[in-house]
């Protein structure tokens, strides 16, 4: 019977050890955005935010894009024009580009995606997260594990995950994102992507179209 005793001791150790591992794994939850209403004060403090701006503050023209990370048209817009805007207009000092959050309510993971990007921005990596979110859009759109994937992208681009998790769990930028949506709506944005260049709204515009507008606005400004 000594063999049986040994077996039960080993079995008990395995049972306790396994349960411990499971509990530790459970405590490491994916960072989830809090649901529920957003405080009015948080929205108020987010008003007036100019977006994620790249380029020279003194550039003669500002190109504002209201976009939704879960919108396929925005992804196409990113692929076709945004890189051109950055390289040919922003890098040359002819314009600055601002990305503003406009997650549409029809997209279930969009707010979380925008929030993940805001948390990445906190660590100076908005652009990297932006590219991950658009680049991988088909991998997370409409899926229940989207936030788990965002966390993986956060790790992939080299974010400090503890800080990222805290940011997501707290929902630190929910108010600012809401303010951005309301700000866009007040300007007349109803769909994404919408560009605002020189006080006019344009939806789904080609790079050439944007460049032509920037050219004419620059000419007007220099007169």
């Amino acid at each position, binding site marked *: *019977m000594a*063999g*049986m005793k040994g*077996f039960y001791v*080993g*079995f008990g150790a*395995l*049972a306790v050890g*396994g*349960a411990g*591992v*499971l509990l530790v*794994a*459970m405590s*490491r*939850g*994916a960072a989830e955005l809090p649901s529920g209403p957003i405080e009015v004060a948080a929205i108020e403090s987010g008003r007036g935010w100019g977006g994620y701006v790249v380029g020279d503050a003194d550039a003669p023209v500002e190109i504002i894009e209201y976009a939704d990370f879960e919108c396929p048209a925005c992804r196409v817009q990113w692929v076709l024009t945004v890189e051109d805007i950055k390289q040919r207009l922003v890098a040359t000092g002819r314009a600055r580009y601002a990305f503003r959050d406009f997650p549409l309510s029809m997209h279930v993971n969009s707010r979380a995606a925008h929030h993940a990007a805001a948390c990445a921005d906190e660590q100076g990596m908005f652009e990297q997260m932006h590219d991950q979110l658009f680049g991988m859009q088909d991998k997370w759109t409409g*899926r*229940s*594990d989207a936030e*788990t994937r965002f*966390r*993986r992208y956060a790790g992939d681009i080299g974010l400090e995950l503890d800080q990222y998790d805290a940011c997501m769990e707290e929902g630190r930028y929910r108010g600012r994102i809401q303010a951005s949506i309301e700000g866009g709506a007040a300007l007349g944005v109803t769909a994404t992507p919408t560009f605002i260049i020189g006080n006019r709204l344009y939806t789904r515009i080609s790079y050439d179209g944007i460049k032509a507008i920037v050219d004419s606005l620059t000419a007007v400004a220099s007169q």
Partner: protein
Amino acid sequence: MKHRMVIAALSLIGLYVALYLSLWKMGLMGPLVCGVGACEVVQMSRFAYLFGIPVAFFGVAGFLALLVVSLVGLRPAFVGKPGPTKLLVALSGGGAAFSLYLTYLEAFVLKAWCRWCILIAVLIFSVFTAALLGLRERPSKT
């Protein structure tokens, strides 16, 4: 009765792995830890459900049944009786066949591997082998 001890230990490990996948499916677990492979592709696929129930739940039920039968089979009243071993062969045989089907799906339909599922397949086949060997074991006096 060694085979029942081996089966009890393997079933416990299998139970924990299946529990891990079930808890993940229920959203109670963080990101799926999956070093090599595509666990989420497999776990989010349409084959991750059977009759509307997550396949991982069947794993929990199956390994729990194996665990209970093997532990009961180790009780003095059942030691030396062939009944529990036959039941273990039947249960693990069914589990192994199901696991074979799931592995086939991973290899040829999804073309994605989930190492937790492979571990479960290895465990259930080991249990099945141990149970078959147990059938040949002579009744012990312990």
